[in-house]
């Protein structure tokens, strides 16, 4: 066995181990508070209870494993009420086999999934989708380098969608130890349709409702949080059956449901 072979095998083993570990890993998020985008700087911060969150977004491979058992979520069988025509369209299909992810995208986050499908996946793991508050709370934690964070976030928003989605987990985790909340995909939240802008985003600031944040930056916590405005805009353009080429998800686990899965072998 040559030196190169040996190195390759070690690398492969390392990748497998990390993959397996990462796949199983959930990060405990301590309870905390954060100021939502739509609140004014003087408004009280919102409390978020402690919960657990997937370290990485759900991968194509994980989702393929899920649909191999939960066949009603396979692209060939999905009820059109629960997903639009683009559902898992980046998976490979041919006449005889069931659609499957491309080998080079196995570790990439699954996209083109509807909210219904994402919700079903998380339920099958004993979890649920994170709430928007939870997601934004975790995502608001930066890494060690705030400037690099901003560059990454704004850079991603201004880049076009790549032909192949890169694998998750390649960038440093944020302060909570969670990867890829920014710079890779959009993510579904449980209540994506509750905290939203309207399609006429400029009128939102006049609406008598704190949930309608809009682009009119007046009154928002930080007028420079354009990236956050974009997330709210994207969420508000969605319906539960919609699927988008760069929209995926990860699962959250509240203590009760976590206990439930721990007692079930």
């Amino acid at each position: 066995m040559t030196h190169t072979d040996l190195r390759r095998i070690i690398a492969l083993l390392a990748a497998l181990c990390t993959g397996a570990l990462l796949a199983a890993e959930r990060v405990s998020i301590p309870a905390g508070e954060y100021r939502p985008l739509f609140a004014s700087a003087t408004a009280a911060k919102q409390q978020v209870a402690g919960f657990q969150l997937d370290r990485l977004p759900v991968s194509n491979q994980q989702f393929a494993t899920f649909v191999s058992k939960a066949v009603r979520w396979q692209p060939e069988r999905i009820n059109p009420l629960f997903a639009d025509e683009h559902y898992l369209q980046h998976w490979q299909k041919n006449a005889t086999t069931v659609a499957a992810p491309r080998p080079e995208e196995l570790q990439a986050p699954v996209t083109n999934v509807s909210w219904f499908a994402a919700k079903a996946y998380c339920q099958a793991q004993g979890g649920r989708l994170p709430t928007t508050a939870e997601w934004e709370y975790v995502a608001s934690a930066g890494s060690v380098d705030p400037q690099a964070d901003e560059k990454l976030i704004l850079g991603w928003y201004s880049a076009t969608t790549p032909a192949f989605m890169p694998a998750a987990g390649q960038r440093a985790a944020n302060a909570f130890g969670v990867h890829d909340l920014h710079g890779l995909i959009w993510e579904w939240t449980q209540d994506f349709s509750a905290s939203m802008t309207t399609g006429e985003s400029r009128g939102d600031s006049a609406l008598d409702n704190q949930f309608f944040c809009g682009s009119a930056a007046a009154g928002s916590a930080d007028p420079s949080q354009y990236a956050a405005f974009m997330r709210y805009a994207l969420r508000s353009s969605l319906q539960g059956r919609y699927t988008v080429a760069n929209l995926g998800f990860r699962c959250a686990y509240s203590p009760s449901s976590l206990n439930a899965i721990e007692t079930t072998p």
Partner: protein
Amino acid sequence: MRRTLPHALLALPMLWSAFAAAELPVENAVLTEAPQVPAPITRTNNAKVVVKLETKEVVKRMADGVDYTFWTFGGNVPGSFIRIKEGDEVEFHLSNHPSSKMPHNIDLHAVTGPGGGAASSFTAPGHSSQFSFKALNPGLYVYHCATAPVGMHIANGMYGLILVEPRAGLPKVDKEFYVMQGDFYTKGAYGEAGLQPFDMEKAIKEQPDYVVFNGSVGALTGDKAITANVGETVRLFVGNGGPNLISSFHVIGEIFDRVFIEGGTATNSNVETELLAAGSAAIVDFKLEVPGTFIMVDHSIFRAFNKGALGMLKVSGPEDKEIYSGKQSDTVYLPEGGAVQTLSEPVKKVTAKNLNEQIAMGQRVFDQNCAACHQPNGEGIPAAFPPLAKSDFLLKDKLRAVGIVLNGRQGAIEVNGKTFVGAMPAIKLDDESTANVVNYILNSWGNKGGSVTVEDVAKVRATSKPAAEAH
């Protein structure tokens, strides 16, 4: 009064409008990319016009060597030109390409209704929305994306024009073009190469790096200039997408004979510069009496020469010396103190170590001192400024070229078989900058003219003196 009216009469208008709506012929809107405009509408009746517009996020050229991720209506900046008639009913389909990262919508200033259609057309990536409106008011209107954050969607290029022709049509002209200004904000400074990301901070401060017509530097110059002939009347549908700047739209050497002010019904005559608010448009008509290249600028003039807001209308046809004579004489004017132009020297002195560095530094000297006349591509301006690219006059004697830079030149010369009569001022440069710029000229645009040294320049300077003699 109302009680005495027969019921049948009351119902008549309703019946009629229902009948009319049902009877409207359906047609698909012809959409064009700038600078083209759809042909004038010849039908006299109203129609139900189906407009299908796609939002798409694309990487395209902003300037030479500079790319940008534009968000577009129809794949280009500005967005496709839409032309309908007053009273038309428009069935609008907005499709957001599946590869889009952002949701998009459209606010057409021609729409009477909340948001100008924005809420009704709010569309996730990979989806389509439909809404309808009736074109009540004639005029030229801006449309743009109004999805949060609105400023960023507009700053990335999401705007265009929709013309609602008045019932009687617009006065007939010979040629129509579509020109739209926009300001862009990039991380890098103007001209900094590579794919440049959007800079939110500069956008908020309203300090653009680029101010351009039709989406990029040079979109309307050189080969892409718009063209017309002497005797023709030209109409420009001019818009300003912003997001921030107000445009002072001016065509150098022309006077707008008729302007539909702010794109509305009122007209003005004999206008030099038309002010375009951010998010507004105007229709300017002018007859072409003489040939030549007419430069379109934002007359906030640093935008034109330093940020890209420059376009060209090339007019061909016979001269009319009574209207414009061209240059009738050119003599050297020697005021007290000499005719030598003083140009600021670079603050920090960096010396080129080899010919390649000399050429690179020489390009900067050229851009600052020579390009205005000889043009950045070295091709000069026919009948005015001689070409340097593949110039037989230049390449025949490189030390003579050094002398001309040092001392200027006046009188007729023949370059590539064409005679040029003019004067070039002496350019006050040190020996090194002179050597650099001459080496740039000798080795650019296909020239293979060898090189000169700083010592050559010093020698020429010592043996020649500012000359005003005729050729």
